């Protein structure tokens, strides 16, 4: 038990440290750039605005929100204080909406899309990788390069290809959005069906890539485990092959949990860009709009939320892994 407590304690400590680091980076990076961040933002904002008073108004508004006229430390305190009150500032492109509200609307879509997609991609990928390692021969010879190829396709590319095939050519899936453009979110049957229809393509574009990547990893892991000494020993004790294969795949799959935790950032990043292709109403599209409209508060807010999502997911995976794989405990005593 002591081992677990130590493990969790360490993980929690690291979670807090990385969280603070993420906040700091989100705060400092735009302020590190040469020049006044507010005038930089305003110059982007004010492109096309000729009226001096309008530019001045924008400038004042941001100077107040950023507090650029005060020292850095004080700015940071204000920033943190606002954050903990759930205030991420006001969006410029969707004025006067608060960034927190916009993100609040988007977060559910992204979570609902990416969480199941990544989990299912992980499970299917592991299954295929395990089968490839066990069956070998033809199955492996075909599956391996195919998986490797799919894992090499960028998520947005997969999104475009699926979109063109199923929406444009076969016309069996909607082209864009998270639900019918003529609908207002509610809990009617029609709306749910529409959401499910719009869900298919973004979902599968993430799943297919995840399957490819995980299958490749699981295959090598399984081959490694199949050659392990305990397999030979269990065989010589007369244990059935089927049972031993069960051991092997369990043992190969557990480290894949960590593998998932480590590749999570990249996967989520790719999937966020894929959202843009479908104009899916999640964080990726929101961020894209922020970038297109030079809406700094919105960009800052979305990147922070994405970071926090990745941090929390990684933390949960680490904790789960500590529970389910006894090998972690041993590593903690070293």
């Amino acid at each position: 038990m002591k081992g677990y407590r130590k493990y969790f304690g360490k993980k929690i400590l690291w979670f807090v440290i990385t969280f603070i680091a993420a906040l700091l980076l989100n705060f400092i990076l735009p302020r590190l750039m040469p020049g006044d961040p507010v005038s930089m933002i305003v110059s982007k904002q004010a492109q096309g605005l000729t009226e001096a008073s309008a530019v001045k108004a924008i400038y004042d508004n941001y100077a107040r929100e950023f507090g650029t006229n005060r020292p850095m430390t004080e700015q940071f305190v204000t920033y943190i204080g606002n954050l903990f009150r759930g205030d991420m500032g006001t969006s410029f492109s969707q004025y006067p909406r608060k960034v927190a509200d916009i993100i609040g609307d988007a977060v559910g879509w992204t979570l609902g899309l990416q969480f199941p997609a990544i989990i299912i991609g992980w499970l299917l990928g592991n299954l295929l990788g395990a089968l490839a390692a066990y069956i070998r021969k033809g199955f492996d010879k075909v599956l391996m390069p195919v998986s490797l190829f799919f894992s090499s396709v960028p998520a947005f590319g997969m999104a475009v290809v699926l979109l063109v095939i199923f929406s444009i050519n076969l016309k069996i899936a909607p082209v864009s959005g998270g639900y019918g453009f003529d609908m207002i979110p509610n809990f009617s049957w029609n709306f749910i069906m529409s959401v499910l229809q719009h869900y298919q393509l973004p979902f599968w574009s993430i799943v297919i890539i995840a399957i490819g990547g995980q299958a490749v990893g699981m295959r090598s892991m399984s081959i490694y485990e199949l050659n392990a000494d305990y397999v030979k020993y269990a065989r010589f004790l007369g244990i059935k092959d089927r049972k031993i294969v069960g051991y092997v795949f369990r043992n190969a799959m557990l480290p894949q949990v960590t593998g998932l935790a480590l590749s999570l950032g990249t996967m989520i990043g790719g999937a966020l860009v894929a959202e843009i292709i479908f104009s899916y109403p999640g964080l990726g599209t929101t961020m894209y709009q922020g970038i297109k409209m030079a809406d700094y508060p919105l960009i800052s807010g979305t990147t922070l939320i994405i970071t926090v999502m990745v941090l929390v997911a990684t933390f949960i995976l680490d904790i789960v892994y500590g529970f389910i794989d006894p090998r972690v405990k041993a590593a903690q005593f070293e």
Partner: protein
Amino acid sequence: MKNTIRQVFHSPKFVVGFCIFMAILLTLFIYPLLNPGNPLQMIGLGTFARPGTYVSVYDGVTSPFSTFKLPQADANRLDSLLTTEDRVNMVNWFSLNGVDVAGLDITDTQAMIALWKQHFDPAIRPQGMTKAMRNYYIRLNTSILGASSADALVVSETDEATGEASEKSKITKTDYVNVADVANVVTLPLGTDNFGRDTLKQLVAACGVSILIGLIAGAVATALGLLLGLLAGYLGGLVDDIIMFFTNIFTVIPSFVLLILINYSISQDQRGAGTVALVIGLTSWVWTTRSVRSQVLSLRGRDHVNLSRLSGHSLPRIILTDILPYIASYVVMAFILQVSSGILAEAQLSLLGLGPKTTEVPTLGLMMNWAMLYSAHLNGSWWAYFPVILVIALISFSLNLMNTGLDQVFNPTLRD
């Protein structure tokens, strides 16, 4: 060393990956020689010209004619005249007017035309048909009759002074021009993009720039990762603690987010391809640091390193002769992976609108970004985006294959 390389080239995975990558590189060098010119030059007006060979109509008309009477000519003309949509509309007209269409194959142009000529009457006004639709059918009928008649087209010239048109030549349906006689013929294997630029020429240039971005990013990340990993692993103690502190933090904070924040903070006109590559490299060193450190840690206690240390060799010498050769394979593998992820990172950034500035050089990401902004995927202009996706996937695939091959050579437990 020589032996290692021989072993590496015995791995089928590595060889296939290497061949794909080399084929891509070779194309990058050879294609511009065959087809020189600025890839960003807008050669066409209008967007998304389809792939194919374009013949100058003017030069065609002024070239010498030969006469051929080919039996299939009329049928071919009608065949290309009638789009699938026209055919569906014709069938609609038939069924609205009580013509039996059972067993009619809409790809059978002759049967369709025969049935049309037999039944169509511009005077008939089927109930519920809009005026626009009726006019469409009349236009369709005119062009069908025109295509099967024997009339010639007249080419006329306008007198600049008087503004009067005078007949210059007649073109009949049996007139043919030898393509070799036409002065201006241009082949665009991948058509043009939204700005009327030659897509293939641009793709080749973009591919080169993207690979260069990947190489720079990979080199920066590998160099930084190697340096930090060596220091952390070999020196240990406080240096190790500090380096690992930052490494652990940046392992969890997604580099994707850092890239967005940093690139957003650099204004667009300062964001050249080199800068973007540098930023990508600076945000992706963590993995190399980790694996190099753990390798060095296990090497540090080995006899040959201890012997070297006891003999009073300097730190750089120990690292160069006793440590680097042992971790070289890992470093090469890490580099290959980082080149591939660097290319991908550029593409994703460009799609978000945070890629290199658009005026200097094309990159795969920028091409993708333009194609998406101009809805190439929605209007059927597959040549503007699909080759880009395919090239990114192929580069990445070839690099991943090489990496897997190397992995199997250096980790014998993974061998087949």
